[in-house]
């Protein structure tokens, strides 16, 4: 029977399968639970007191060198005179010179092993020792891919939750910075951490997030986007209600504003709630530049959001319904270029836009080596050829390319997707009703945004509901000495002031006078 | 007229689904349906009789004499 067990487990060398082995009972239970796991290692040995012991671990998740040097050496060099004392010093007095090991019931053994911990099993003992010696190969901390800045820090999150937490912890050196951990996913047991600064973050928000996350019953959580859909209040809305970022400085700033962050193990994107539309239109670079530059770029960004959404629709509406609006010289040029096109403006726009979307999607999968060449081919040759063949007009090519460029200005990718997607219904409305259709489409969009909430906060704060003090970070990027209060919160008890009030500076002045 | 009926049929279905989702009482169902039927009939009536009379005629008939009375009264005082 043991030989059958031996064959099935297929472990590495060093495995004893003696029927009369006192540790056999515990090990056979473990082997049964972890059957057909070829990367499982069970290393049996005898202690100095002739007690049968075994180390159980998964080869790929642990550092074998560490196990040799730390665990085995510590066990063999333990100061004890009898077997009983040996057992007691390990289990009761915790005298093994290894940090952070726990005594767990044997039933919890299998799940600990698959998490990357090392299990020490001693004969006739229903408890086991669990050592935390994970060594999972992962990426090194690198530059952010999607949120590059010129002047700001260049660290980005990686897949390991603990490393991500350390990146934030080294920026927020306060005991008020709290982290709560939970495990979500029946099969993946993914570590999810909720981060907030106590005293700045609303307790209701923390409670809401805690409740939502604890109610998630799902097979596996493979990335932060799995949780994002549960945190959305309106999952059918195209607009994101949860922000994600790969920059630790953005997360730290968000936490200091009283928001809440969620780290998901295995994902380099950290979620931040709650979020407003204007926060999604901000980029980290805004805060590392001078405020004049920051304000200017912010305005350009707002302008281009509108262009990205509305430019093709305006073109369709004006050329189809309101040609009297265009100055006469331009009107002649546009008419001439549209003369040879057999389709109405709406159909032309649709053809171009859909081709552009296809190009964009394909570009993601093109290998880098030919990516440049293909984009040049696509843009110049196909575009020019299409115009010359009379399928589309030159003006339309310009409009569509300009719109495409405008859509890349939006810092948050999901919001950019939403705007791209919404462009099409508004184009249809423009084609049927002209400028009136665009206005109606915008009104519908506007009402939708007013109704939308992110964790209870209206999406269009601070424009509606109108919070004057927060407009200084929305319309413009006010200088730092201006931004003395944190963003508006309903809860009066929270600490509102980012910077101390003016009295402190007056005191300083007095002291200087005295010194003089 | 058929289009109006079609629109109202869609509307009835939509509201029925909404009420069902929110578990409203039977009384609510009755009131909502009765009101929908009432407005449907009024719409059809308005549409059918649109050549004979319009709502504007009704309002003029009722309120114009009142207005003339007041305005005439003001004119008389001057």
């Amino acid at each position, binding site marked *: 029977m043991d030989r059958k067990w031996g064959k099935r487990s297929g472990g590495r060398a060093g495995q004893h399968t003696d029927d009369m082995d006192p540790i056999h009972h515990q090990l056979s239970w473990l082997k049964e639970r972890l059957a057909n796991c070829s990367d499982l290692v069970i290393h049996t040995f005898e202690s100095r007191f002739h007690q049968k012991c075994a180390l159980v671990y998964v080869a790929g998740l642990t550092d074998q060198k560490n196990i040799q040097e730390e665990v085995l050496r510590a066990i063999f060099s333990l100061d004890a005179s009898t077997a009983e004392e040996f057992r007691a010093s390990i289990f009761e007095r915790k005298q093994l010179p290894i940090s952070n090991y726990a005594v767990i019931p044997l039933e919890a053994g299998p799940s600990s092993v698959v998490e990357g911990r090392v299990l020490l099993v001693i004969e006739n003992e229903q408890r086991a020792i669990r050592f935390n010696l994970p060594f999972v190969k992962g990426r090194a901390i690198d530059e952010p891919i999607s949120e590059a800045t010129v002047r700001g820090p260049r660290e980005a999150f990686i897949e390991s939750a603990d490393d991500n937490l350390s990146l934030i912890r080294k920026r927020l050196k306060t005991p008020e910075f709290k982290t709560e951990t939970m495990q979500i996913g029946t099969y993946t047991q993914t570590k999810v951490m909720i981060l907030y600064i106590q005293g700045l973050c609303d307790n209701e928000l923390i409670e809401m997030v805690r409740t939502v996350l604890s109610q998630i019953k799902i097979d596996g959580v493979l990335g932060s986007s799995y949780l994002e859909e549960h945190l959305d209040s309106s999952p059918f809305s195209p607009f994101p209600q949860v922000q994600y970022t790969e920059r630790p400085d953005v997360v730290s700033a968000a936490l200091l504003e009283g928001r809440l962050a969620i780290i998901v193990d295995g994902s380099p994107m950290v979620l931040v709630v709650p979020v407003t539309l204007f926060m999604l239109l901000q980029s980290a670079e805004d805060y590392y530049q001078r405020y004049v530059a920051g304000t200017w770029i912010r305005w350009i960004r707002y302008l281009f959001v509108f262009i990205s959404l509305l430019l093709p629709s305006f073109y369709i509406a004006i050329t189809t*319904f*309101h040609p*009297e*609006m*265009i*100055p*006469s010289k331009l009107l002649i040029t546009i008419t001439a270029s549209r003369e040879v096109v057999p389709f109405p403006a709406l159909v032309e726009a649709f053809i171009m836009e859909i081709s552009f979307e296809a190009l964009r999607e394909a570009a993601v999968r093109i290998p880098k080596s030919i990516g440049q060449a293909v984009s040049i081919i696509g843009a110049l040759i196909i575009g020019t050829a299409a115009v010359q063949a009379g399928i589309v007009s030159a003006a339309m090519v310009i409009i569509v390319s300009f719109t495409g460029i405008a859509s890349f200005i939006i810092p948050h990718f999901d919001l950019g997707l939403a705007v791209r997607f919404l462009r099409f219904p508004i184009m249809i*409305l423009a084609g049927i*009703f*002209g*400028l*009136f259709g665009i*206005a*109606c489409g915008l*009104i*519908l969009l*506007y*009402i*939708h945004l*007013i*109704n939308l909430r992110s964790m*209870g*906060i*209206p999406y*269009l704060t601070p*424009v*509606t*509901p*109108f919070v004057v003090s927060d407009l200084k970070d929305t319309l413009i990027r006010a200088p730092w000495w201006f931004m003395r209060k944190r963003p508006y919160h*309903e809860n009066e008890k929270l600490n509102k002031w980012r910077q101390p009030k003016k009295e402190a500076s007056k005191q300083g002045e007095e002291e200087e006078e005295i010194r003089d | 007229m058929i289009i109006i009926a079609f*629109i*109202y049929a869609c*509307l009835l279905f*939509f*509201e029925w689904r909404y*009420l069902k989702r929110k578990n*409203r009482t039977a009384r*609510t169902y009755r*009131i909502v349906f009765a*009101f*929908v039927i009432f*407005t449907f009939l*009024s*719409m059809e009536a308005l*549409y059918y009789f*649109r050549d004979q009379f*319009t*709502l*504007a005629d009704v*309002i*003029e008939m*009722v*309120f*114009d004499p*009142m*207005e003339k009375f*007041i*305005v005439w009264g*003001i004119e008389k005082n*001057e």
Partner: protein
Amino acid sequence: MNDKYEKVTPTQLYMLFSLYLFTTILSFRQGALVGEAKFGVWVSLLIGSFGGLLFPYFSYRLAKRRPTRFFSHYGREIVGSWLHYPLVSIMIFSYLFSAAFVLREMQDFMVEVFLPDTPDWAVTSIFCICVAYAVRSGVQTIFRCAQGVFFLTMIGMLLIPVFVMGELNKDMSVAFLNHFDWKGIGSGSYLVASLYGQMSFILFLFPFFSNQQKTMKSLIWATVTSLFIICSNLIPTILIFGPELTSNLIYPELELIRYIRAGYFLENLDPVLISIWLTSLFIKISLFLYVAILILTHSFSLQDHKPLSLTMTILMAGISLLMVRTGADLVRLMGHGEVMFLIVTEAIPILYLVVDWIRSRLGKSSNEKAKA
């Protein structure tokens, strides 16, 4: 974060009513107003607006007596069911009709000026989809809508006279101070009062207000702001076109904007006008419709206004398409009876206030007699 209790702040009230008040007067009533009052139009605006403010004031007094209850619930306690239900029906119909009226005016404008080949019902339908969405979302949405567009609209409306400064006939301005046709001014005031008095429907929205004491203050400031905007557009219109032409133009504001020469970029700035008007008109129509639905919902003692909202929207659309045969009939209706209809509706809360006051007086005196 508590949705159910999210209230309307005085700022939102002020912003919404500023937009609401100037929009129909500037868009569609300039012709009628200037036709009546000629150069004295500013006087009739002043008299009419502050006179019209009396109606919401009385509504406010009535609402203050029971600040947390909705009118449709306690109305029948005051005058009895037999009188209350007919009066409420008149009010519901009046607000529905007003919404349909403004919708019809907007639809005529759109089809005539911008979309000549589009059928009426298509324009109305697409607009009603927007209105239905807003109304179904609730009153807070409508007020927040107004808040969001307030500044842009104000800036837009105030830029218009700035751009036409060059075209004004300044010699005519003296006439504003010495040409007074009191009969015309009276008729004009009457018209303006009916429009400003429509604010009396705050009676129905009173429990939604977060700071009920400041209601009248918001309304007064809204009146002042709207008067400023109206005058800043109306006076240049008269100075450019003269009162006779203005009274004969159907859309003087449109013609005013066409006078703006914004350089060589765009020949005319019609989209500016469309966007400003459309949003303000949308808010006005939605609010009227919402009030009608609210009264209806509370009269039926239902909790949720959503099931009835779509029905009423379709009814409003139908009424707006079928209420008059042609646009000329609409203008005729304005001059023959519409104003009276509005004033009667606005006066109904005064009736309730008077009856309630008398009843409370009688109640007090009978209590005193009982004690004695």
